[in-house]
């Protein structure tokens, strides 16, 4: 809770600091997020529930908050060069990112559907602006408009879903502490099960849009490609984390109704995997490829959601940690290269390993992790999800969703093809680009190195991570 307040205050302070001196906005925002990260430790030992039961900051939601704040910290901290497009308005961009993080934090902790809606809006509205923050770039404007129109539509449907759920149950509360929460809906209306299910369906529509899961993914490639690199990395990590956690909290809270949603989610997961991977195969632009690969990662995460058991929360956390860290390494590296060559194509990376072996090496490690090769975190993230699905399958009579794991496994083989294109470009292709890419600043390289180290050693501490969740 205090972390949320800290981030909010940081955002406001950043706005005003920017008015005084643009140069200070980045240090101030970074410092504020670092403080917020520290505050998360305090929050962790003091779970907070507000009096009207709107928000509940449990251990799990504090850990997710910590992850999101860490992502923001890394992104803003290393953004010295990727922010230059914003000119004098860079402080505003930072502040909007921080506001968006506030929305994410609310989504980790909501225990009332109104807060879910508010969280989604606080998360999205700054992003509509951020996607278009490169004002002179037509692609950025296009991306902003597309995101806004489709996002507003999805939000509307989400709101309609919430209204229907309220109509059926007479309550906005989720979770067990209040007697009048939504799962006791029979008490309030005479069996509006159809209405309730319709409502849940519409809510899932709205939330699946946010995480870009197929078949609600059509916006993502264009928006990701058009938005400035900094914002794309932000969308690919923070928004995905927040959306997945929001879906999980809601589905776990309606518990027994979850059963009938399993198949829906299984199909959405399979579709996301296949659509994301096959669309990524033929792309020329690395950024676009990452956009499609993020759709397929949404598929893996949805596969986790089909498990229908609280055990998925730490599993999802581990997956999101691995996914976010590797995405950040790739995006920051890409933004550096693209910032100097002006291209996001694979060919822009040709021969990078000759000139900057460390940057290329770190990006390769992140790529291998994304592709799910052991012993990196990406593999264990996938493995934990697969293992849980199998465990559930072994317990149930019909075998659960083992076929979906097969789909996921085959897809992770296919994904090697496009993930390795960047490695081939960096290591095995001669340089063709005329623009010289200068060496990355040491401090940024160091941060990337730390993230790769995290990818390497996180599996060693997975047990402790799981322990924290059920603390």
């Amino acid at each position, binding site marked *: 809770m205090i972390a949320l307040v800290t981030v909010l205050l940081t955002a406001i302070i950043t706005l005003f600091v920017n008015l005084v001196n643009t140069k200070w906005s980045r240090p101030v925002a970074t410092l504020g997020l670092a403080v917020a990260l520290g505050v998360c430790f305090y929050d962790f030992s003091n779970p907070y529930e507000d009096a009207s039961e709107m928000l509940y900051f449990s251990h799990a939601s504090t850990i997710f908050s910590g992850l999101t704040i860490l992502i923001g910290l890394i992104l803003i901290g290393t953004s010295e060069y990727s922010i230059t497009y914003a000119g004098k308005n860079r402080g505003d961009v930072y502040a909007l990112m921080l506001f968006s993080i506030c929305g994410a934090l609310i989504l980790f902790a909501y225990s009332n559907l109104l807060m879910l809606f508010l969280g989604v809006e606080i998360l999205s509205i700054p992003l509509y602006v951020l996607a278009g923050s490169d004002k002179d770039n037509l692609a950025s404007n296009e991306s902003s408009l597309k995101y806004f129109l489709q996002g507003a539509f999805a939000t509307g449907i989400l709101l309609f879903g919430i209204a229907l759920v309220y109509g059926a149950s007479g309550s906005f509360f989720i979770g067990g502490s209040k007697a009048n929460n939504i799962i006791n809906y029979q008490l309030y209306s005479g069996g509006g099960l159809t209405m309730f299910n319709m409502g849940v369906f519409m809510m899932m529509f709205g939330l699946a849009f946010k995480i870009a899961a197929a078949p609600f993914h059509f916006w993502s490639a264009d928006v990701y490609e058009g938005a400035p690199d900094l914002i794309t990395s932000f969308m690919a990590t923070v928004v995905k984390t927040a959306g997945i956690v929001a879906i999980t909290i809601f589905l776990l809270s309606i518990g027994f109704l979850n059963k009938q949603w399993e198949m829906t989610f299984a199909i959405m997961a399979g579709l996301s995997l296949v659509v994301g991977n096959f669309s990524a195969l033929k792309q020329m632009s690395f950024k676009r490829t990452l956009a499609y690969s993020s759709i397929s990662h949404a598929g893996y995460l949805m596969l986790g959601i089909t498990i229908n058991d609280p055990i998925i929360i730490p599993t999802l956390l581990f997956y999101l940690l691995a996914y976010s860290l590797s995405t950040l390494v790739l995006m920051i590296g890409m933004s550096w290269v693209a910032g100097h060559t002006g291209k996001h194509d694979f060919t822009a990376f040709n021969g990078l390993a000759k000139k900057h072996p460390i940057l290329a090496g770190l990006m390769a490690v992140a790529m291998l992790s994304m592709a799910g090769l*052991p012993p990196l975190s990406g593999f264990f993230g996938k*493995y934990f999800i*697969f293992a849980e699905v*199998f465990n559930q399958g*072994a317990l149930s009579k019909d075998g659960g969703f083992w076929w979906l794991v097969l789909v996921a496994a085959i897809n992770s083989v296919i994904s090697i*093809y496009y993930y390795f294109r960047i490695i*081939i470009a960096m290591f095995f292709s001669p340089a063709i680009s005329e623009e010289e890419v200068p060496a990355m600043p040491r401090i940024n390289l160091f941060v990337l190195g730390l993230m790769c180290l995290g990818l390497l050693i996180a599996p*060693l501490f997975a*047990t402790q991570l799981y322990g924290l969740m059920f603390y």
Partner: protein
Amino acid sequence: MELILIPLFFAAVQFFVKGRTASWLALASTLVSLGWTICMISGYAMDGSTVNLVDVEWLKFAGIRFTLAYDGIALMMVLLTNLALPIILLASWDRNYGKSPLYLGLALLMQAALVGVFLAQDGILFYVFWELALIPIYFISAIWGGENKNRITLKFFIYTFFGSIFMLVGLLLWKSYGSSTNGFAWMSLVQSQIPSDIAFWAFLGFALAFAIKLPLFPFHTWQPDTYTVAPAGGTMLLSGIMLKMGLFGFIKWALPLVPHVGENMMHFLSVLAVIGIVYGSIIAIKQNDMKRLVAFSSMAHVGLIAAGIFTQSLEGLQGAIIQMLNHGITAIGLFFVIDVIERRMETRELTLLSGIAKVSPVFAVMTLILVMGSVAVPLTNGFVGEFILLKSVFDSNATLGVIAGLTIIFCAVYLLRMVQFSLFGPSNAQNEKFTPLTWAEGIGLGTLCFFVLWIGINPDPFFGLTERSVSNLLSLFNAIKVMP
């Protein structure tokens, strides 16, 4: 544990050193590993017992432990790995890529992963090392490879990754549906009860992974291209050691599932293996590129080893294990020879070579010893292994045994053809380019020849190392109770 840590440590050190220091450090590291292995073997009681090296809780909630242990079979494979590594480094000593710290670091990383594969006692740990071994060899082949390297190495990577992901699914099936009491621990998995239909799918997953790695016909299409395109050091790693991962995997991880699956599966696989023998041999006869020739011959030899494993008899397994060591030695030797020729003559085409023996008789003698070892002439190592393998295959199925026996004839045809074209005949004008062997090449080839003759003349210590372990393994598998 040290066997994994030493290469890993020196691989990390390669980041900080340059030039010849890097090469010397890497060589020293492999020699230390080799010495350590020999100490371990001399300390081993030869009674088939399993000695735990390390056993700690890793991912408790997922039932994964970090367990390394060795028995006779694992020791044999570790010996092969650690014996091969110094020779591979010597083989690339004078090559450009051999001087690169990156190459040395990757080779050492590969060594650590391979040792891990052979020692791992936990399914997931095995899988982790299995995949870890794939990454360095991919980079070695793709950075220093020849023509079309990007396409071929990516095909190789996707092919093998495709197989191993199904092995992961198989492991998960085995653990989730079996009554394993201790997670992925090997012993617990082996003794678990598993419904036969699930076991069938799990076995299929394992078999696919191992068959692609071997490679077994018809999963071999990645092999000749990759062997040809990879630099000599990479080819040696691939053929000498990496392919043994598949064979070892069959022995340790796939055979325990056979009682649940039924023997028919084994007959089917034996037929595939024998087809591979004949197919590989016939294609090898027509090759003009020496590297491709040896690649196909390797496919034939591995087919025979696999057929021996599929008999599930003491003789078959014993023969397979000793032949794995032998094949490692001779395959590395032959690729070494080809590299020596290629470096001087700048070609691998048989039609362009002639009469090298006249220029360098020492080299010719060493080559001949290695070729004899591969052809399985008595008093060389190949004879010991192939004889026992053929006998075991013949005992289990006479028809297959006879067809498999053709391998010796075929092998003699294509390898002697290679020797005849390149070493003998009228001396070629190009041959003055053939400078004498360097010390690194001399030591490398000499060691290999020494082992060819040693195992050929006195194979007993090698058999003794694994005999009790194999019989223990077989009695363990025979005691598996099948779910009704």
